[in-house]
């Protein structure tokens, strides 16, 4: 067979059922192999960035490795944002790019870029394949590296002549990667120490992140929380790893997290960090983050432990194993160590009652938070699962604050990189992974305009998604910063509510379009969108001035989180 066939046979061996991409010159032989026949479904995106985010959405929703395919040059560089996003959020991705012919590499040939060089800082590893005999072992290694250890993106760049070369294909059973040794065990002594620290803690708190989802350790986390009655905060990336409606889940900490979650971290004497990396959006000023706490840090990646915050008890290894062992240790300690953190649980609960997420409604003005609440309530009444995606900005933070996600992999967002435009293509990828679920993208108007061409993909590939554009007519989060920190100089953030007309745009792409300016209209629009039987876009024209609170100003201590100011009562819409 040909090298191009070998790529497809490798994907089949890896159990890939869907790949996302766009053909072009240097990857043409591989698309010819797709045309010749494969069990891999190819979803044709409209931009390679979209293909990359689709692969990410697919990976996050399914737990499998996402696959994106692009041609050389601009095709490959268009993938870069998605690769960087996957890198920051530890999403397993295999990106396959065509490269110019071997004899042209290094000559600045048409559509040649050094994509392995460009992506070097944002991949776990990459391969430039110039010998067809290496192709099967490289493909095997690519999937292995992407999915083992801390998950993340890899890149396989295949010269065009390699795709055209003859090969006797045999897929290897094993990988030969002597330098790749992710941890498979945890140190029992460290787990024991962690258990003793938890048993003795008066003000313990679990701080759980996206690593719990990647490690498929959600059940183990819940066991731990239940067994030791530990209050938990869950980051943006971790949302869904512990049910939002679990009474001990205190939700998101950080810049737009709750006051109670930030306070609980601040006053804790023991922080049990699980699959999380002390991101600056969570910690605020690091020196003021949980200042009185010892830290236990569970992570698969040793380099995250002690990177930002010293770990008094580091536990490096697979979380599923570590958490199960920890809970077992705690149970065996329970007899001699009666729990001493009862008053702390009451304290944290008091804070929650005192400082809930809140916003002021105003007559005649549709608040973006109301739209999110309506979506939440609507989804609660559905029989099927709902999987949410978002873009990045205010709407994302409101989604984080107000949506209730009780299942793992039901909230899919761009965290570390903060990639505007993630939501729509990610939703298409989610739908490919979860055809049984209703997939809803809560997007901003700024984000939506960055990748909305993928509505065509959703429509034509029959991957119906519902996109709810929280349209405040502005780059809202930037506007918020301009209002609060740049003396209200609103430079270059006004997009307008009206251009484009999102409902018409949706129709142009073969989707159903709806527009709502009041709660009543929104209710009808959502009913229409959820019942459309095809992709739909709901343009929610809402208050341009609404700001996202609470908020930790950049560089401030998280404990000094700002509450929403009292509503200006004289203002009536």
């Amino acid at each position: 067979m040909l090298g191009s066939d070998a790529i497809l046979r490798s994907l089949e061996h890896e159990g890939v059922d869907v790949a996302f991409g766009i053909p072009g010159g240097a990857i043409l032989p591989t698309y010819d192999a797709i045309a010749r026949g494969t069990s891999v479904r190819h979803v044709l995106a409209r931009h390679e960035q979209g293909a990359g985010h689709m692969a990410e959405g697919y990976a996050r929703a399914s737990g499998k490795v996402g696959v994106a395919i692009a041609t050389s040059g601009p095709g490959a560089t268009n993938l870069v944002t998605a690769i960087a996003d996957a890198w920051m959020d530890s999403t397993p991705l295999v990106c396959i790019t065509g490269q110019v012919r071997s004899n042209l590499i290094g000559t600045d040939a048409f559509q040649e870029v050094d994509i392995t060089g460009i992506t070097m800082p944002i991949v776990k590893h990459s391969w430039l394949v110039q010998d067809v005999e290496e192709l099967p072992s490289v493909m095997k290694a690519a999937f292995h590296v992407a999915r083992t250890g801390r998950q993340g993106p890899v890149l396989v760049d295949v010269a065009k002549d390699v795709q055209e070369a003859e090969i006797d294909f045999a897929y290897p059973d094993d990988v030969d990667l002597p330098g790749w040794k992710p941890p498979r065990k945890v140190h029992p002594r460290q787990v024991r120490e962690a258990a003793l620290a938890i048993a003795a803690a008066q003000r313990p708190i679990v701080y759980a992140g996206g690593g719990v989802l990647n490690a498929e350790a959600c059940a183990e986390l819940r066991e731990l929380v239940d067994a030791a009655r530990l209050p938990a905060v869950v980051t943006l990336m971790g949302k869904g790893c512990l049910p939002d409606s679990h009474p001990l889940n205190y939700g998101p900490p950080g810049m737009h997290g709750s006051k109670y979650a930030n306070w609980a971290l601040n006053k804790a004497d023991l922080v049990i960090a699980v699959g999380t990396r002390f991101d600056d959006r969570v910690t605020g000023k690091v020196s003021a983050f949980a200042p009185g706490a010892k830290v236990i840090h569970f992570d698969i990646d040793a380099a995250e432990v002690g990177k930002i915050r010293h770990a008094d008890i580091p536990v490096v290894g697979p979380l599923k194993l570590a958490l199960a062992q920890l809970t077992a240790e705690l149970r065996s300690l329970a007899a001699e160590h009666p729990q001493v953190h009862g008053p702390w649980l009451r304290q944290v609960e008091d804070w929650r009652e005192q400082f809930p997420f809140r916003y002021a409604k105003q007559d005649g003005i549709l608040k973006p938070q109301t739209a999110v609440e309506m979506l939440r309530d609507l989804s609660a009444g559905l029989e099927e699962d709902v999987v949410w995606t978002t873009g990045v900005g205010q709407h994302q933070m409101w989604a984080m604050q107000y949506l209730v996600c009780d299942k793992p992999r039901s909230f899919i967002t761009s965290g570390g990189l903060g990639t505007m435009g993630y939501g729509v293509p990610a939703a298409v990828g989610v739908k490919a992974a979860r055809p049984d679920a209703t997939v809803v993208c809560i997007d901003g108007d700024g984000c939506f305009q960055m990748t909305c061409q993928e509505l065509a993909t959703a429509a034509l590939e029959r991957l119906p998604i519902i996109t709810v554009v929280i349209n405040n007519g502005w780059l809202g989060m930037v506007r918020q910063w301009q209002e609060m920190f740049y003396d209200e100089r609103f430079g270059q953030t006004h997009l307008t509510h009206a251009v484009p007309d999102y409902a018409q745009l949706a129709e142009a792409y073969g989707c159903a379009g709806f527009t709502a300016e009041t709660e009543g209209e929104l209710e009808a629009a959502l009913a229409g969108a959820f019942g459309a039987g095809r992709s739909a876009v709901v343009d929610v024209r809402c208050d341009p001035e609404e700001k996202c609170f609470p908020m930790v100003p950049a560089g401030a201590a998280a404990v000094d989180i700002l509450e929403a100011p009292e509503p200006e009562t004289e203002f009536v819409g």
Partner: protein
Amino acid sequence: MSTHTISVRLENKPGALARVSQLFSRRGYNIQSLAVGPTERSDISRLTLRVDCSEHSLEQIEKQMHKLVNVLRVTELRPDDSLERELALITVAVAPDKRADLVALSQVAGAVVADIGRDAITFEVVGRPDQVEAFEELVRPYGVRELVRTGRIGLRRPSRAATPSERN
């Protein structure tokens, strides 16, 4: 801040060195010197890096490097239990009447004359980094025209190596 010597066993594969060096620039660590060359195995290279950094950064560097697929092993070479050597070529300006003095001086210091020109001599000096530096200081008053150092290379001393049981 202090200076550390890090020794890295690296698969001899295309791009492997670039991955290590980009990691340093990406994470903001400053490399003082870097020497890379073949080892007892043709498929493995060894890098010796001198890095200015805190203990905390050193730990981060080691951990981040361990994550590179081509990196087989990272060890810090501590002065007490390792050998370090460096080679320098130094071209010194010298008038014909001072030539004999300089050559005599270099012989005492253990340097070798590699080439002699009309008004300059190139010395080759191999030794511990402090010896190389001392020779450099010694000839500096004559006028150093050009100088190149390989950067240090190092190995753990077998006499100080951990017993197999300590190696875990």
